[in-house]
Protein backbone atom coordinates (compact mmCIF):
# COMPACT_ATOMS: atom_id res chain seq x y z
CA UNK A 1 0.00 0.00 0.00
CA UNK A 2 2.85 2.31 1.02
CA UNK A 3 4.64 1.56 -2.27
CA UNK A 4 1.55 2.36 -4.28
CA UNK A 5 1.15 5.66 -2.43
CA UNK A 6 4.80 6.57 -3.03
CA UNK A 7 4.45 5.70 -6.72
CA UNK A 8 1.33 7.85 -7.00
CA UNK A 9 3.00 10.82 -5.30
CA UNK A 10 6.04 10.45 -7.59
CA UNK A 11 3.76 10.35 -10.62
CA UNK A 12 1.92 13.46 -9.48
CA UNK A 13 5.19 15.31 -8.92
CA UNK A 14 6.96 14.12 -12.06
CA UNK A 15 3.94 13.94 -14.37
CA UNK A 16 3.98 17.57 -15.50
CA UNK A 17 7.75 17.43 -16.02
CA UNK A 18 7.46 14.27 -18.16
CA UNK A 19 4.59 15.82 -20.14
CA UNK A 20 6.55 19.05 -20.65
CA UNK A 21 9.54 17.05 -21.90
CA UNK A 22 7.43 15.09 -24.43
CA UNK A 23 5.70 18.24 -25.71
CA UNK A 24 7.65 20.49 -28.06
CA UNK A 25 8.01 24.21 -27.45
CA UNK A 26 4.97 26.12 -28.73
CA UNK A 27 4.94 29.51 -30.45
CA UNK A 28 2.00 31.84 -31.12
CA UNK A 29 0.53 32.70 -34.52
CA UNK A 30 -1.81 35.68 -34.64
CA UNK A 31 -4.15 35.66 -37.65
CA UNK A 32 -5.20 39.20 -38.52
CA UNK A 33 -8.24 38.12 -40.56
CA UNK A 34 -9.97 35.93 -37.99
CA UNK A 35 -8.41 37.40 -34.87
CA UNK A 36 -7.44 33.90 -33.67
CA UNK A 37 -4.21 33.31 -31.80
CA UNK A 38 -3.06 29.74 -32.34
CA UNK A 39 -0.17 28.20 -30.43
CA UNK A 40 1.69 25.52 -32.38
CA UNK A 41 4.96 23.57 -32.09
CA UNK A 42 7.92 25.79 -32.97
CA UNK A 43 9.60 23.01 -34.96
CA UNK A 44 6.59 22.45 -37.25
CA UNK A 45 6.41 24.05 -40.70
CA UNK A 46 3.81 26.56 -41.78
CA UNK A 47 2.12 26.03 -45.12
CA UNK A 48 -0.12 28.42 -47.03
CA UNK A 49 -3.46 27.04 -48.16
CA UNK A 50 -6.25 29.12 -49.65
CA UNK A 51 -9.15 29.69 -47.22
CA UNK A 52 -7.28 28.22 -44.23
CA UNK A 53 -6.40 30.26 -41.14
CA UNK A 54 -3.38 28.13 -40.35
CA UNK A 55 -1.89 24.97 -41.83
CA UNK A 56 1.13 23.35 -40.21
CA UNK A 57 3.09 20.21 -41.04
CA UNK A 58 5.39 18.18 -38.80
CA UNK A 59 7.79 17.74 -41.75
CA UNK A 60 9.47 19.98 -44.34
CA UNK A 61 7.80 20.40 -47.76
CA UNK A 62 10.51 18.39 -49.54
CA UNK A 63 9.48 15.29 -47.53
CA UNK A 64 5.88 15.42 -48.73
CA UNK A 65 4.94 12.42 -50.88
CA UNK A 66 2.73 12.91 -53.93
CA UNK A 67 -0.92 11.95 -53.40
CA UNK A 68 -0.78 10.89 -49.71
CA UNK A 69 -0.42 14.41 -48.24
CA UNK A 70 1.96 13.42 -45.44
CA UNK A 71 4.75 10.85 -45.10
CA UNK A 72 4.39 7.91 -42.69
CA UNK A 73 5.34 9.33 -39.30
CA UNK A 74 4.20 12.80 -40.35
CA UNK A 75 1.17 14.94 -39.58
CA UNK A 76 -0.63 17.98 -40.85
CA UNK A 77 -3.02 20.24 -38.93
CA UNK A 78 -5.34 22.81 -40.50
CA UNK A 79 -7.67 25.27 -38.85
CA UNK A 80 -10.20 27.16 -40.95
CA UNK A 81 -13.09 29.54 -40.41
CA UNK A 82 -16.40 28.43 -41.92
CA UNK A 83 -18.07 31.83 -42.25
CA UNK A 84 -20.71 31.27 -39.60
CA UNK A 85 -22.17 28.24 -41.38
CA UNK A 86 -24.29 25.91 -39.24
CA UNK A 87 -22.37 22.77 -38.29
CA UNK A 88 -24.63 20.57 -40.44
CA UNK A 89 -23.79 22.67 -43.53
CA UNK A 90 -20.08 22.12 -42.89
CA UNK A 91 -20.76 18.40 -42.45
CA UNK A 92 -22.64 18.21 -45.75
CA UNK A 93 -20.17 20.31 -47.75
CA UNK A 94 -17.22 18.23 -46.56
CA UNK A 95 -19.11 14.91 -46.78
CA UNK A 96 -18.25 14.03 -43.16
CA UNK A 97 -20.81 11.25 -43.30
CA UNK A 98 -21.00 7.54 -42.42
CA UNK A 99 -21.39 6.78 -46.16
CA UNK A 100 -18.00 8.44 -46.62
CA UNK A 101 -16.42 6.46 -43.78
CA UNK A 102 -16.63 8.98 -40.91
CA UNK A 103 -17.67 8.11 -37.36
CA UNK A 104 -19.27 10.98 -35.50
CA UNK A 105 -19.38 11.90 -31.81
CA UNK A 106 -19.96 14.97 -29.67
CA UNK A 107 -17.02 15.88 -27.44
CA UNK A 108 -16.21 18.64 -24.97
CA UNK A 109 -13.16 20.74 -25.78
CA UNK A 110 -11.50 22.60 -22.95
CA UNK A 111 -10.31 25.83 -24.53
CA UNK A 112 -9.19 29.27 -23.47
CA UNK A 113 -12.79 30.37 -24.15
CA UNK A 114 -14.09 27.73 -21.76
CA UNK A 115 -15.77 24.40 -22.47
CA UNK A 116 -16.89 24.10 -26.09
CA UNK A 117 -18.99 21.28 -27.51
CA UNK A 118 -17.42 20.08 -30.74
CA UNK A 119 -18.69 17.59 -33.26
CA UNK A 120 -15.80 15.25 -33.96
CA UNK A 121 -15.40 12.98 -36.99
CA UNK A 122 -12.86 10.20 -37.34
CA UNK A 123 -11.94 8.07 -40.34
CA UNK A 124 -9.20 5.77 -41.57
CA UNK A 125 -9.79 5.82 -45.34
CA UNK A 126 -8.21 3.04 -47.37
CA UNK A 127 -7.10 5.55 -49.98
CA UNK A 128 -4.43 6.75 -47.50
CA UNK A 129 -2.33 3.82 -46.26
CA UNK A 130 -1.93 4.05 -42.47
CA UNK A 131 -3.81 7.36 -42.55
CA UNK A 132 -5.94 8.71 -39.69
CA UNK A 133 -8.30 11.68 -39.90
CA UNK A 134 -9.67 13.65 -36.97
CA UNK A 135 -11.98 16.54 -37.85
CA UNK A 136 -13.56 18.82 -35.23
CA UNK A 137 -16.28 21.31 -36.13
CA UNK A 138 -17.23 23.76 -33.40
CA UNK A 139 -18.71 27.17 -32.72
CA UNK A 140 -16.88 29.67 -30.54
CA UNK A 141 -18.04 33.24 -29.95
CA UNK A 142 -20.62 32.88 -32.72
CA UNK A 143 -18.11 31.75 -35.37
CA UNK A 144 -17.88 28.26 -36.86
CA UNK A 145 -14.44 26.67 -37.10
CA UNK A 146 -13.10 23.44 -38.53
CA UNK A 147 -9.91 21.86 -37.19
CA UNK A 148 -8.33 18.87 -38.93
CA UNK A 149 -5.54 16.51 -37.95
CA UNK A 150 -4.25 14.06 -40.53
CA UNK A 151 -1.39 11.75 -39.67
CA UNK A 152 0.03 8.48 -40.97
CA UNK A 153 1.21 5.64 -38.76
CA UNK A 154 -0.80 4.14 -35.89
CA UNK A 155 2.21 4.32 -33.56
CA UNK A 156 2.17 8.12 -33.79
CA UNK A 157 -1.39 8.41 -32.44
CA UNK A 158 -0.41 9.55 -28.94
CA UNK A 159 2.18 12.04 -30.18
CA UNK A 160 0.14 13.76 -32.86
CA UNK A 161 -3.25 13.62 -31.16
CA UNK A 162 -1.58 15.05 -28.03
CA UNK A 163 -0.17 17.98 -29.99
CA UNK A 164 -3.48 18.52 -31.81
CA UNK A 165 -5.37 18.50 -28.53
CA UNK A 166 -2.89 20.97 -27.03
CA UNK A 167 -3.35 23.32 -30.02
CA UNK A 168 -7.14 23.24 -29.69
CA UNK A 169 -6.99 23.77 -25.92
CA UNK A 170 -4.83 26.87 -26.27
CA UNK A 171 -6.54 28.69 -29.18
CA UNK A 172 -7.39 32.25 -28.18
CA UNK A 173 -10.63 33.36 -29.81
CA UNK A 174 -11.48 37.00 -30.57
CA UNK A 175 -13.93 38.57 -28.12
Amino acid at each position, binding site marked *: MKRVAIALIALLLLGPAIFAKSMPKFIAFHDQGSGLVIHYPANWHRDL*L*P*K*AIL*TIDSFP*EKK*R*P*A*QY*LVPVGGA*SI*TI*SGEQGKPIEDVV*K*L*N*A*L*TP*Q*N*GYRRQEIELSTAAGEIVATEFR*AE*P*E*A*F*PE*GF*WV*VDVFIANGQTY*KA*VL*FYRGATYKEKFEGIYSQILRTIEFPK
Partner: protein
Amino acid sequence: MPLEVWEQNLADVIDDFLKRYKGISGSTPLQRVFTPSAGQYFVKKSQETGVDPSLVLGICKSESSMATNAHINGGPFNIYGDSSHFSHVAGSKTKLKHVLYSDYLAPTDTVFRTLSGYIAANLITTDAVYKRYEGEASWRRNVPMIKEVQKLLTGDPFDVRYQFDETRKKALAKLAEKFQKPLLSLTK
Protein backbone atom coordinates in the same frame (compact mmCIF):
# COMPACT_ATOMS: atom_id res chain seq x y z
CA MET B 1 -29.97 9.21 -52.73
CA PRO B 2 -32.14 10.24 -55.71
CA LEU B 3 -30.73 12.86 -58.07
CA GLU B 4 -32.08 16.39 -58.01
CA VAL B 5 -33.01 17.89 -61.38
CA TRP B 6 -29.75 19.84 -61.62
CA GLU B 7 -27.79 16.70 -60.71
CA GLN B 8 -29.50 14.78 -63.49
CA ASN B 9 -28.63 17.66 -65.81
CA LEU B 10 -24.99 17.42 -64.71
CA ALA B 11 -25.04 13.66 -65.31
CA ASP B 12 -26.36 14.31 -68.83
CA VAL B 13 -23.69 16.96 -69.45
CA ILE B 14 -20.99 14.48 -68.37
CA ASP B 15 -22.40 11.77 -70.66
CA ASP B 16 -22.47 14.19 -73.58
CA PHE B 17 -18.93 15.35 -72.83
CA LEU B 18 -17.63 11.76 -72.79
CA LYS B 19 -19.57 10.86 -75.93
CA ARG B 20 -17.98 13.73 -77.85
CA TYR B 21 -14.49 13.28 -76.43
CA LYS B 22 -11.77 12.24 -78.86
CA GLY B 23 -8.53 11.25 -77.17
CA ILE B 24 -5.19 9.80 -78.20
CA SER B 25 -6.62 6.50 -79.45
CA GLY B 26 -10.13 7.68 -80.28
CA SER B 27 -13.29 7.71 -78.20
CA THR B 28 -13.13 7.07 -74.47
CA PRO B 29 -14.21 3.69 -73.02
CA LEU B 30 -15.53 5.56 -69.97
CA GLN B 31 -18.82 6.30 -71.71
CA ARG B 32 -19.58 2.55 -71.83
CA VAL B 33 -18.32 0.97 -68.61
CA PHE B 34 -20.36 2.63 -65.87
CA THR B 35 -23.98 1.83 -65.01
CA PRO B 36 -26.58 3.13 -65.42
CA SER B 37 -24.42 5.75 -67.18
CA ALA B 38 -21.03 7.38 -66.57
CA GLY B 39 -22.73 10.67 -65.71
CA GLN B 40 -25.00 9.11 -63.12
CA TYR B 41 -22.14 7.05 -61.65
CA PHE B 42 -19.92 10.11 -61.23
CA VAL B 43 -22.71 12.20 -59.74
CA LYS B 44 -23.54 9.44 -57.23
CA LYS B 45 -19.86 9.27 -56.23
CA SER B 46 -19.89 13.03 -55.79
CA GLN B 47 -22.94 12.83 -53.52
CA GLU B 48 -21.11 10.24 -51.42
CA THR B 49 -17.69 11.89 -51.19
CA GLY B 50 -18.33 15.63 -51.64
CA VAL B 51 -15.92 15.89 -54.59
CA ASP B 52 -17.13 17.62 -57.76
CA PRO B 53 -17.06 15.23 -60.75
CA SER B 54 -15.57 17.93 -62.97
CA LEU B 55 -12.35 17.79 -60.94
CA VAL B 56 -12.14 14.01 -61.19
CA LEU B 57 -12.74 14.04 -64.94
CA GLY B 58 -10.22 16.86 -65.33
CA ILE B 59 -7.60 14.73 -63.57
CA CYS B 60 -8.59 11.79 -65.78
CA LYS B 61 -7.98 13.89 -68.87
CA SER B 62 -4.63 15.14 -67.64
CA GLU B 63 -3.39 11.72 -66.50
CA SER B 64 -4.68 9.41 -69.25
CA SER B 65 -6.53 11.49 -71.84
CA MET B 66 -9.79 9.95 -70.53
CA ALA B 67 -8.40 6.40 -70.69
CA THR B 68 -7.39 6.72 -74.34
CA ASN B 69 -3.64 6.75 -73.71
CA ALA B 70 -2.28 3.24 -74.30
CA HIS B 71 0.83 3.86 -72.22
CA ILE B 72 -0.47 4.78 -68.81
CA ASN B 73 1.99 4.71 -65.95
CA GLY B 74 0.81 1.99 -63.58
CA GLY B 75 -1.18 -0.15 -66.01
CA PRO B 76 -3.96 0.48 -68.51
CA PHE B 77 -6.67 1.06 -65.89
CA ASN B 78 -4.66 3.51 -63.76
CA ILE B 79 -6.46 6.36 -65.49
CA TYR B 80 -6.21 8.90 -62.66
CA GLY B 81 -2.47 8.45 -62.13
CA ASP B 82 -2.71 6.70 -58.74
CA SER B 83 0.94 6.78 -57.70
CA SER B 84 0.60 3.69 -55.48
CA HIS B 85 0.48 1.76 -58.77
CA PHE B 86 3.61 3.31 -60.23
CA SER B 87 5.85 0.34 -59.39
CA HIS B 88 4.84 -0.85 -62.83
CA VAL B 89 5.99 1.53 -65.50
CA ALA B 90 4.58 1.03 -68.99
CA GLY B 91 7.19 -0.46 -71.32
CA SER B 92 9.67 -1.29 -68.53
CA LYS B 93 10.61 -4.66 -67.03
CA THR B 94 10.09 -3.47 -63.48
CA LYS B 95 8.46 -6.18 -61.35
CA LEU B 96 5.03 -5.41 -59.99
CA LYS B 97 4.82 -4.75 -56.28
CA HIS B 98 1.13 -3.92 -56.19
CA VAL B 99 -2.00 -5.42 -57.65
CA LEU B 100 -2.86 -3.39 -60.70
CA TYR B 101 -6.35 -2.15 -61.33
CA SER B 102 -8.30 -4.53 -63.53
CA ASP B 103 -11.26 -2.32 -64.38
CA TYR B 104 -12.23 1.36 -64.43
CA LEU B 105 -14.50 1.24 -61.36
CA ALA B 106 -11.88 0.65 -58.65
CA PRO B 107 -9.59 3.56 -59.66
CA THR B 108 -12.64 5.81 -59.96
CA ASP B 109 -13.81 4.92 -56.46
CA THR B 110 -10.26 5.39 -55.12
CA VAL B 111 -9.73 8.82 -56.67
CA PHE B 112 -13.05 10.07 -55.25
CA ARG B 113 -12.06 8.76 -51.78
CA THR B 114 -8.60 10.30 -52.04
CA LEU B 115 -9.87 13.71 -53.06
CA SER B 116 -12.55 13.55 -50.38
CA GLY B 117 -9.73 13.34 -47.83
CA TYR B 118 -8.17 16.43 -49.42
CA ILE B 119 -11.42 18.34 -49.00
CA ALA B 120 -11.61 17.36 -45.34
CA ALA B 121 -8.09 18.79 -44.99
CA ASN B 122 -9.23 22.09 -46.51
CA LEU B 123 -7.61 21.56 -49.90
CA ILE B 124 -10.44 22.99 -51.94
CA THR B 125 -8.96 24.81 -54.93
CA THR B 126 -7.85 22.95 -58.04
CA ASP B 127 -4.31 24.30 -57.71
CA ALA B 128 -4.00 23.25 -54.06
CA VAL B 129 -5.50 19.81 -54.72
CA TYR B 130 -3.47 18.97 -57.79
CA LYS B 131 -0.20 20.24 -56.34
CA ARG B 132 -0.59 17.71 -53.53
CA TYR B 133 -1.90 14.95 -55.80
CA GLU B 134 0.76 15.22 -58.49
CA GLY B 135 3.69 16.54 -56.50
CA GLU B 136 5.73 19.72 -56.74
CA ALA B 137 7.68 18.78 -59.87
CA SER B 138 4.98 18.68 -62.53
CA TRP B 139 1.62 19.86 -61.23
CA ARG B 140 1.66 23.23 -63.04
CA ARG B 141 1.86 21.61 -66.48
CA ASN B 142 -1.47 19.76 -66.16
CA VAL B 143 -3.56 22.25 -64.22
CA PRO B 144 -4.81 24.22 -67.29
CA MET B 145 -6.13 20.95 -68.79
CA ILE B 146 -8.03 20.15 -65.59
CA LYS B 147 -9.54 23.63 -65.41
CA GLU B 148 -10.66 23.37 -69.02
CA VAL B 149 -12.70 20.26 -68.18
CA GLN B 150 -14.05 21.89 -65.03
CA LYS B 151 -15.25 24.83 -67.08
CA LEU B 152 -17.01 22.59 -69.62
CA LEU B 153 -18.78 20.76 -66.80
CA THR B 154 -19.69 23.97 -64.89
CA GLY B 155 -17.28 23.15 -62.04
CA ASP B 156 -15.46 25.79 -60.00
CA PRO B 157 -11.63 25.70 -59.87
CA PHE B 158 -11.74 27.86 -56.73
CA ASP B 159 -13.96 25.42 -54.84
CA VAL B 160 -13.93 21.77 -55.89
CA ARG B 161 -16.54 20.66 -53.38
CA TYR B 162 -19.76 19.22 -54.81
CA GLN B 163 -22.31 22.02 -54.65
CA PHE B 164 -24.75 23.94 -56.80
CA ASP B 165 -25.56 27.62 -56.63
CA GLU B 166 -28.31 29.15 -58.76
CA THR B 167 -25.82 30.18 -61.48
CA ARG B 168 -24.62 26.61 -61.89
CA LYS B 169 -28.14 25.20 -61.87
CA LYS B 170 -29.15 27.62 -64.64
CA ALA B 171 -26.02 26.87 -66.68
CA LEU B 172 -26.72 23.14 -66.42
CA ALA B 173 -30.36 23.56 -67.40
CA LYS B 174 -29.25 25.51 -70.46
CA LEU B 175 -26.70 22.87 -71.43
CA ALA B 176 -29.24 20.08 -70.90
CA GLU B 177 -31.65 21.80 -73.30
CA LYS B 178 -29.05 21.44 -76.03
CA PHE B 179 -29.24 17.65 -75.79
CA GLN B 180 -32.91 17.89 -76.77
CA LYS B 181 -33.88 16.41 -73.46
CA PRO B 182 -37.34 17.20 -72.12
CA LEU B 183 -37.15 20.67 -70.61
CA LEU B 184 -36.22 20.21 -66.96
CA SER B 185 -37.46 22.75 -64.49
CA LEU B 186 -35.14 24.14 -61.82
CA THR B 187 -37.76 23.46 -59.19
CA LYS B 188 -38.59 20.01 -57.87
